């Protein structure tokens, strides 16, 4: 009996993690999308387009990596879009005055991490529902960024290393994609293999049980908020590099894209369930849809309609599959 369970364990876990849950549905959706689009428009498979898709995915994936952790703990952060814009402006301003990439990045991280910390404290200490708390933060950041700068912060430092952040390559792969992959990998490893990751799931699954087990659940949530914030810091700097300016108007609706990707990836808003591979697939599906609509020359307004349908559909299919499993 014992040996039987032991030997079946690894197979189940790999299968379970990669294919078992909603990822299977998503994988199929992604494959069908890719095949259908490239049949209709062969340019879809061009190297240039794949790189363009990946670069678009990179920004979302970076923030979604943190957001996945956060949603796994059963909290959410709606302020990431507003923070993204603010971070870019602050980073650029510090770069302009110091001409040091390191200091600019540091300022961006400090700010974005600080926003995460603030959200986390409001949620864990003041016990404000995270949906409401981060709507509040979102408003404060949207207003705050214009108090900070009324115009786009221009690139006066002309640091090549900064430009490379968005437009550079390592080999044939754009630098933002490399950064995203690294962050994704760290987050995925953390969630799957470390005590920290295990605790994050546990907090989402049953916070009181975790607390009774002697684990400081509030710190875990705080951690997830701060990590999400730091991810926004990275993404904000890449975005400002790509746009060559700190844009206070950037990031509108970004939070919804990120959350949609995470949910699409099968992470439960109730916490305790989800995986970064799912998020990766979710990001890819959303961005392939976005890209495909342009490549096919369809009306760009479909870029809102299709993801809406896909999110509902994917969740529904997941529920149906779960029900079938129970029976």
């Amino acid at each position, binding site marked *: 009996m014992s040996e039987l*369970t032991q030997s079946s*364990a690894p197979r189940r876990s790999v299968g379970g993690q990669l294919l078992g849950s909603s990822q299977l549905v998503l994988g199929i959706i992604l494959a069908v999308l890719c095949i259908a689009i490239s049949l209709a428009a062969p340019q879809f498979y061009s190297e240039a387009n794949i790189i363009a898709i990946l670069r678009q995915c990179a920004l979302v994936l970076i923030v979604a990596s943190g957001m996945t952790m956060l949603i796994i703990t059963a909290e959410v952060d709606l302020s990431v879009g507003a923070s993204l814009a603010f971070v870019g402006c602050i980073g650029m301003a510090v770069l302009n005055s110091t001409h040091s990439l390191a200091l600019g990045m540091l300022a961006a991280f400090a700010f974005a991490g600080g926003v995460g910390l603030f959200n986390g404290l409001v949620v864990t200490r003041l016990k404000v529902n995270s949906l409401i708390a981060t709507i509040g933060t979102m408003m404060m950041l949207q207003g705050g960024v214009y108090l900070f700068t009324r115009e786009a912060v221009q690139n006066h430092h002309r640091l090549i290393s900064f430009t490379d952040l968005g437009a550079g390559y390592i080999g044939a792969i754009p630098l933002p994609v490399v950064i995203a992959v690294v962050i994704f990998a760290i987050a995925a490893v953390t969630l799957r293999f470390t005590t920290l990751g295990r605790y994050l799931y546990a907090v989402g*699954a*049953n916070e009181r049980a975790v607390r009774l087990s002697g684990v*400081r659940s509030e710190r875990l949530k705080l951690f997830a908020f701060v990590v999400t914030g730091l991810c926004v810091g990275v993404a904000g700097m890449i975005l400002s590099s790509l746009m060559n300016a700190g844009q206070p108007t950037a990031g509108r609706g970004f939070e919804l894209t990120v959350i949609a990707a995470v949910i699409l990836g099968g992470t439960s808003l109730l916490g305790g369930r989800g995986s970064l591979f799912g998020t990766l697939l979710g990001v890819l599906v959303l961005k392939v849809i976005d890209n495909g609509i342009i490549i096919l020359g369809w009306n760009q307004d479909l870029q809102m309609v299709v993801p809406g349908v896909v999110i509902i559909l994917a969740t529904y299919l997941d529920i149906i599959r779960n029900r079938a499993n129970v029976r």
Partner: protein
Amino acid sequence: MSVDFLYPGEGAAVDTGVPAIEMRGIDKRFPGVVALDNVDLTLEPGKIHALMGENGAGKSTLIKIMAGVYGKDAGTIRMRGRELDIRSPRDSLKEGIKVVFQEIALISEFTVAENIFLEGYPTGKGGSIDWKKIRADSAALFNRIGFNVDPAARTGSLPVSQQQMVEIARALAHEARVVVMDEPTSSLTPNEISLPFTVIRRLAALGIAVLYVSHKLDEVFEIADTVTVLRDGRHVSTRPIGEHTNDTLIQDMIGRRIESLFPRKRGAPGSKVALSVQGLSTAKKLKDVSFEANAGEVLGFFGLMGAGRTELAKAVVGFDPIISGTISVDGRHLMPHDTHTGVRLGIGLLTEDRKSEGLMGELPVYQNASLASLGAFARMGFIDKARERKAVQDYVDRFRIKTPSLFQQIKNLSGGNQQKVLISRWLMRGLKVIVVDEPTRGIDVGAKSEIFALIDRLAGEGLAVVMMTSEMPELLGLADRVAVMCEGRLTAIMSRDEATQEKILNAAIG
């Protein structure tokens, strides 16, 4: 529409001979457990029928099937010869089956009066709720049965015992053919017990078939006409109460000698104080509670519902805040007062509320087991999963935890196996003091004795076990000393030899 119904002397003509409800061959399975196996039950109008059995015998499952909470896997339910198709509580209520559950089924934000009429508001012209009538009728109803509570009070603000009485009173507010009372006295003090009896007798006088679910012998002898006993999900006997004696009933319920349920293997408790609690008070409930528990000892806490056992359990381990008092584990103060410190010092809680405070239902068995001791399997923050699973597997084997695999979601295990996993959680961590709160709640009888054996073993291994329970046999069977609580105070501590049911109950009433 129906409050007039309860006025005396207006009992409907009783159709004796025709059963009010007839259940035949009821089967019900849950993952890993057969809850009911071919159970029959017939209720007569105007008669009080007791349903007896130990925890886990299948009483709750059977009445939940009557109430439409669960669907049955096999069998038929007939009412006056007509087969019923009960798929939801709504269907059940429509057929005139009214179940008063032991767990409080009231909306705590609503007033008492509103909860009385939850299943059907009296409406006036145009279908609007007639609040005046609701208030007046519930006041009249309370008057009639001698229940002294303000109908306008917010239900959630009442003590648990009064909430249970509201539940019972509710049975009179609606027309019914069959009323089921699930352990209606579980949280009542002895001087409150007359209320459910008044209600039940009134119901019977009105020609309603009453099913009285209990495991308290004296109550059953006092009120029932007929008794059906279930054991391990099977029908054991149905006899008129007159054919039973205390002994025959116990024989039917337990089916074996009571001692075998509590196999005591451990030696005498040690003399080293493992847990010392001095002057503990909380804002909500506890007042100046002081006690000590020695290593290797089972200290049993008894109290009626609302006495503060669970509150004490949660405060002692650092989960709930305290306003004064000190707690020390093995001589070290629990400061700051949180569970992180508590677990570090070696005190942990096996909760009574597994679902919301113990289990991570969506997560697999092995993750549930290792939650408190992850650090032991980690190197540089990385979990050595092989080692972790092997350790969990050891416990699964030792405690005979029935699970298809370590990767099974724990919500799919039976209550007993879930409890064993949660005990493993603490054993893997290695504690000095474990507080167990109602350790056998929702666990079937077979697994019960295993849990008792585990608790016995824990104490045998030198842990101090603080056990909160409302089950007298459990208390007397397991504890070395008995502490009794009443309304947040500790009213008595006695040794195993001094403790008798009467003494304990007297102390519990305060």
